[in-house]
């Protein structure tokens, strides 16, 4: 599924790397615990989270996560955007809750990691 389609389903606002919206992901993982994210072995994953700090971007960089969706209208900071730009990570803000975002994307065919 392309990030452009995903953004449309969750009323998402693209904060970073709009030029990469045609890239696609196969799996999604929802967590506020970066320790959990770091144990995920799959590739081609999107992260859904309610946590907004620099380590979300660092964790995504190390885990090869190409897109992060920030739920509950959480706002992404400037330093996070700078780091995401450097690493080509797409950032999307959504007004929906983590549960709502997850539900919409699951319904549309994104797969859980297990």
């Amino acid at each position, binding site marked *: 599924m392309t990030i452009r389609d995903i953004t449309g389903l969750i009323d998402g606002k693209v904060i970073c790397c709009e030029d990469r919206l045609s890239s696609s992901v196969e799996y999604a993982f929802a967590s506020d*615990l970066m*320790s959990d994210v770091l*144990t995920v072995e799959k590739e081609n994953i999107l992260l859904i989270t309610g946590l907004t*700090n620099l380590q979300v971007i660092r964790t995504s960089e*190390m885990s090869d996560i190409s897109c992060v969706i920030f739920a509950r209208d959480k706002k992404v900071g400037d330093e996070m955007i700078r780091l995401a730009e450097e690493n080509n990570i797409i950032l999307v803000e959504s007004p929906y809750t983590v549960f709502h975002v997850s539900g919409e994307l699951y319904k549309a065919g994104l797969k859980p990691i297990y």
Partner: protein
Amino acid sequence: MQIRHKIAGGDFTRAGNIASAVKKVLQQLNIDHKQSKRIVIALYEGEVNVVAHAYSGVVDIDIDSEKVRITIADKGPGIADIEKAMEEGYSTATPQVREMGFGAGMGLSNMKKNSDFMNISSVPGEGTKVELINYIKPDAD
């Protein structure tokens, strides 16, 4: 190739800078992607541990044709019971560390999972030293 970096305890804004730099080096060296990812994740977990628990640390990365050897040595409270610290879920992290999305007691076990060899030695009241080795081969594709 030998690289040395310093880590300041408590500075969460810079946690991951070393792993990020090493990731780029491993990409340039064309190291197998899966192994490269394991190395940077183990190193990142190690950086977060120093930032979360210690006063300061030094990371030495030694890359040769067979392996990547990482040594993370910190000055800090040390670990009194290493076996206990290795248990998944056991943590002494502060609420601040947990707010950053860490401190769930999974760091050391994830470092072990993402390395081919790991050794921890610690002197309580002085500091901790973690040695990680990952064997590498050039990327097949």
